[in-house]
């Protein structure tokens, strides 16, 4: 069967089980947009290429399947660089297809030419510049294989226009050998010696903590984690990237560690004698000052990526494998720590003394952002998916929402990409149309990518967006208040400009606003009744609210600051 390169590309995506492409056409990718008309794949036309990338990420994080985005060359390609970098930092499986100028024009500074494989070399797991139509099936199959196996990540395919237009005889690889990836082997057999040494360390431990990172979600190890934690009775902390990997309602769950982590989670890591790190990477937002992080703890570091071992913290046992295999092996070996009663007694004391706290909500407003999140959560169906941008609202969402299952928390962790929330929510809703999707956003973030609500309305993707509108770039304001003597520099945005309700309505969404507690409850009820179009709520929140607990940048986790209402006695 003779196909054009463009037809072969779309057919290859169908072979990989792709049901949705997020994209925006342009000159160099034009040939590929023609066979889309004849394909079963749904194409979602975005309003900016960055939106396509974040939607594909949201889709991937909510479904566990790779997200697919397609854009044109030049500025189309550079506009999707931020999502690619974001996916790289968070190990999100993504396949991004970019159009490229014709082969003969490459290197000639042709119209809308850019070296996107060069630009994305450092922020993709791998990228391809297709050289012939014949290799399209192999490259597409390889891209999906690379994106989804081992440590997942974004893979970019750059397709010159003339190759999309040339003919090829259709074929498709049927085995991994045909992919021709001699340097890639994601299957790492577990080393029995590592397991034995890990079991020894666990057996000697009196104060262990399961330090659960995003890799646990990526390897779908939540069931194994629950079984292992319950049998061993070990306390669990879940990082920002791992929220949902272990139920927040579980009595062994201490919550999120790190810069804005729960006091008990942060302190349990500090006082532990053993950390079992499961797909976590000792990020600076978790460790604080590295020299004083968990100073008395032995480390069992489980990761599929061996380059994570000893990068930040020396491991006592480094197990290169996926999390399911590691937990299965530890379970089979009946790994068991010492009696943890004393350890739990200590942890319970911290939990009672330093719970998550915020000031009493005021009936007439301004609203407490934490109370808004809790009120939305109280009325949300089980399994609701929450996305966020980056900043204070993100930390409050992670702290105050109760995540019970994988794929319900979709956020930008490593890269900290403002504007992630709205497009990621759209992608999540496309991937999980059965679920309610709330984007907890900040006013600063919302302004970066809100135009994708036009996409949501046009494509019939009814997400709900809660803007915690404090009229500021809130996290920067918090730092300026605390560390720059309240010298506020370039952080004021205004609560009224733009008018978020009018803006939402102009984009075909329902726009609502709440200033008082009663209005807050009312608009949430109203939003929950709307299931056909996107809803945007402008919650007017207190500008002076700060995220607590907090460990200052570079400070020791021992110097964690709790909410002012909990201070007064020695921490």
């Amino acid at each position: 069967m003779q196909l054009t390169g463009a037809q072969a590309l779309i057919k290859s995506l169908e072979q990989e089980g792709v049901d949705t492409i997020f994209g925006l056409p342009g000159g160099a990718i034009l040939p590929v947009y023609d066979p889309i008309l004849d394909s079963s794949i749904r194409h979602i036309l975005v309003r900016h290429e960055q939106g396509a990338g974040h939607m594909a990420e949201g889709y991937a994080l909510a479904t566990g399947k790779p997200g697919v985005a397609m854009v044109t060359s030049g500025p189309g390609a550079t506009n999707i660089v931020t999502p690619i970098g974001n996916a790289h930092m968070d190990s999100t499986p993504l396949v991004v297809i970019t159009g490229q100028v014709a082969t003969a024009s490459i290197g000639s500074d042709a119209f809308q030419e850019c070296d996107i494989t060069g630009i994305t070399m450092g922020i993709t797991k791998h990228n391809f510049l297709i050289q012939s139509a014949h290799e399209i099936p192999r490259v597409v199959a390889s891209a999906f294989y690379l994106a989804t196996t081992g440590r997942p990540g974004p893979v970019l395919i750059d397709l010159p226009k003339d190759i999309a237009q040339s003919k090829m005889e259709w074929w498709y690889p049927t085995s991994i050998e045909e992919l021709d990836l001699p340097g890639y082997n994601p299957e790492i057999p577990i080393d029995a010696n590592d397991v034995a040494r890990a079991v020894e360390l666990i057996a000697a431990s009196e104060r262990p903590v399961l330090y659960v990172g995003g890799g646990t979600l990526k390897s779908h190890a939540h069931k194994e984690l629950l079984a292992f934690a319950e049998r061993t009775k070990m306390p669990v902390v879940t990082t920002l990237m791992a929220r949902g990997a272990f139920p927040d309602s579980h009595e062994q769950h201490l919550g999120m560690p790190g810069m804005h982590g729960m006091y008990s989670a942060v302190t349990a890591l500090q006082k532990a004698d053993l950390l079992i790190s499961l797909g976590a990477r000792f990020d600076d937002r978790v460790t604080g000052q590295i020299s004083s992080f968990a100073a008395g703890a032995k480390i069992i570091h489980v990761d599929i990526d061996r380059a994570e071992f000893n990068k930040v913290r020396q491991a006592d046992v480094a197990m290169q494998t996926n999390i399911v295999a590691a937990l299965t092996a530890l379970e089979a070996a009946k790994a068991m720590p010492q009696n943890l009663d004393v350890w739990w007694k200590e942890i319970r004391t911290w939990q009672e003394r330093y719970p998550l706290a915020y000031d009493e909500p005021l009936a007439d407003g301004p609203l407490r952002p934490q109370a808004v999140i809790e009120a939305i959560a109280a009325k949300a169906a089980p399994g609701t998916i929450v996305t966020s941008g980056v900043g204070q609202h993100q930390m409050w969402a992670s702290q105050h929402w109760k995540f019970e299952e994988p794929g319900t928390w979709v956020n930008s962790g490593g890269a900290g990409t403002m504007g992630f929330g709205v497009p990621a929510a759209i992608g999540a809703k496309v991937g999980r149309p059965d679920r309610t999707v709330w984007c907890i956003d900040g006013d600063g973030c919302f302004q970066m990518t809100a135009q994708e609500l036009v996409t949501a309305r046009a494509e019939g993707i009814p997400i709900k967006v809660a803007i915690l509108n404090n009229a500021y770039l809130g996290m920067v304001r918090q730092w300026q208040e605390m560390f720059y003597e309240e010298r506020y520099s370039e952080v004021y945005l205004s609560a009224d400009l733009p008018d978020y309700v009018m803006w939402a309505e102009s984009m075909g969404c329902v726009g609502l606003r709440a200033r008082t507690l009663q209005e807050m409850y009312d608009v949430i009820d109203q939003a929950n009744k709307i299931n056909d179009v996107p809803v945007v709520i402008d919650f007017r929140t207190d500008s002076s609210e700060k995220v607590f607990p907090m460990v200052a940048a570079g400070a020791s986790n021992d110097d964690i600051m709790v909410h002012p209402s909990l201070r007064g006695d020695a921490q």
Partner: protein
Amino acid sequence: MTAPEPYLGTTNRTPVRHHILSVLVENKAGVLARIAGLFARRGFNIYSLAVAPAEGNARFSRVTIVVDAESAPLEQIVGQLNKLVNVVAITDLAPKDAMERELLLATLSIVNDRSSVLDVVANAGASIVDVNATSVTVMLAGPPSACDQLEKALESFTEVELQRTGRVALPRLGQTVSA
């Protein structure tokens, strides 16, 4: 992985603690850029680099990289390099386990001090590969330390144009190496 061994040579140009990574890569466009880019963005220092088609196989090339193991832990360098999809295999050679060789070419003026030039060349065991009325081009293939010595000996001459290839290496016979 064991700690890098101190360099056993006597030169002042070579990093005190270097390692030789013999990296087998797919012979595809952009592979060298991937390696160079990785070293640059991770802050690893490359001391020298030599690339050539691998033994009898057009599919692969061999990249010999001399890395400064003080710029980053060797484990990190190898771990990150190994993640490049086009990197097929990495052999890590400590200097004491490696047979290292390098080639030096130098063109010198012989107008004023022909005899001393020839003395230096003879002492170093270098050979003359090109000559005319005013200049000679000499070549030395040998251990990097021998190239260092010849380079130093040539410092006293004027109008020297000198080029070194960077080293290639194979394991010393009878030694085991770690992958």
